[in-house]
């Protein structure tokens, strides 16, 4: 190596050192710290609608009609591996063992997992796309075929998707799958075609116990804001900081 380039005068060292340190300090100051409440109140800088979902685990009776309605409404293949929306049965036994099952997504109903005497608690958890505000799945797409709309809905561009499966891996909630016939990725669109006609998504329309609530987080009088105010709600995997907009009431820490 050349001697001249490695030798640094004291003056030069301080000069570059100060510039570097100042640059780093400026850059970190311009980052906005994550605010957990941000996404429950309003969209970051957006006007108009900002959709959020609430699910009341205390009310779910596990009929699986939402999973069924979702498949019919969106032409999801009937095979038991493709789901946009499904229900899981959690059973926590007295000895601490956790059983999770979802036979055919709950469409054919559930059987109790253990004899009643062994069960400490048991509940149903309906699952679907969380429509994250900072979706990991949209960030990994190499071609820009999946994106968030202004209303906070994560959509897929079927024409443009190349079926590379990156987003299937990236979703921490397992809400994406590759459509066997189209070869492109498919996911919950919050029934975008119904929303645009002013209707509720099919799973919300069908729920017999009103365990699913859906609405505009920007509207202070909407059902979802009423739900959030009156219940202690939680998102799944909050440590991942996905900005999830699916809020569960009475969510147990076992749910993953």
């Amino acid at each position, binding site marked *: 190596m050349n001697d001249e380039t490695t030798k640094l005068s004291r003056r030069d060292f301080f000069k570059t050192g100060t510039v570097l340190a100042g640059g780093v300090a400026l850059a970190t100051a311009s980052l906005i710290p994550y605010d957990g409440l941000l996404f429950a109140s309003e969209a970051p800088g957006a006007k108009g609608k900002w959709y959020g979902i609430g699910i009341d685990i*205390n009310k779910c009776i596990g009929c699986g009609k939402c999973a069924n309605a979702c498949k019919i409404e969106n032409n999801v293949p009937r095979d038991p591996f493709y789901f946009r929306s499904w229900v899981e049965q959690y059973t926590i036994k007295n000895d601490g063992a956790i059983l999770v099952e979802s036979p055919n997504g709950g469409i054919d109903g*559930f059987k109790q997992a253990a004899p009643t005497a062994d069960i400490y608690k048991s509940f149903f958890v309906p699952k679907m796309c969380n429509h994250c505000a900072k979706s990991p799945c949209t960030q990994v797409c190499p071609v820009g*075929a999946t994106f968030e709309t202004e209303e906070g809905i994560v959509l897929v561009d079927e*024409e*443009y998707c190349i079926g590379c499966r990156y987003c299937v891996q990236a979703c921490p909630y397992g809400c994406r799958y590759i459509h066997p016939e189209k070869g492109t990725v498919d996911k919950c669109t919050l029934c975008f*075609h119904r*929303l645009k006609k002013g209707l509720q998504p*099919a799973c919300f329309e069908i729920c017999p*116990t009103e365990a699913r609530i859906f609405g505009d987080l920007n509207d202070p009088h909407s059902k979802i804001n009423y739900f959030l105010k*009156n219940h202690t709600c939680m998102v799944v995997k909050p440590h991942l900081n996905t900005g999830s907009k699916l809020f569960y009431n009475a969510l147990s820490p076992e749910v993953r």
Partner: protein
Amino acid sequence: MPQHIKRLIGVFAVFILFFLVLQQVLKPDSFGELGHFRAKAIYENSLRPMHYTVADSCTKCHKDIRIDKDLGFHIKLKCEVCHGPALAHSLYAGNFKDKELPDSLTLYKPGERKDCAICHELNAARIKIQFDTLNTTMVHQIDVLTHHPFDPKTKVPFKCIECHNPHQP
């Protein structure tokens, strides 16, 4: 400036120009209008066909059943929960008054025991306590195997709807 740097700059300029032209040709229209995606995809997503309709649309023609249902325990159940997607039915069934409905418009009539069991089968995960004082939800559960399984005299299996009116249980 040395000769080779000048040549390099020229080569780079050609490459970059070529790339820009290629990008313009290959980029689909409406890409990048709202972000790193095709803005038209939003519109395309909203064009998918519907299968389910809304709860109130049945009332127009089946008013009596709606009134029955709203007086009973099944008040919160939408018609389509039991009968399946009914958008086509609610649009076109009016043309078939007092006639056989064509196959495409007939709806599923869930009269079997398993159809009711999906919601009423005994299961520890179903809610039995009233959590919410504003809206009570607890579904009454029965053991499908022992709850009136068959006629005690003739031993013919019972259907739930022989004793319970599904619209007003």
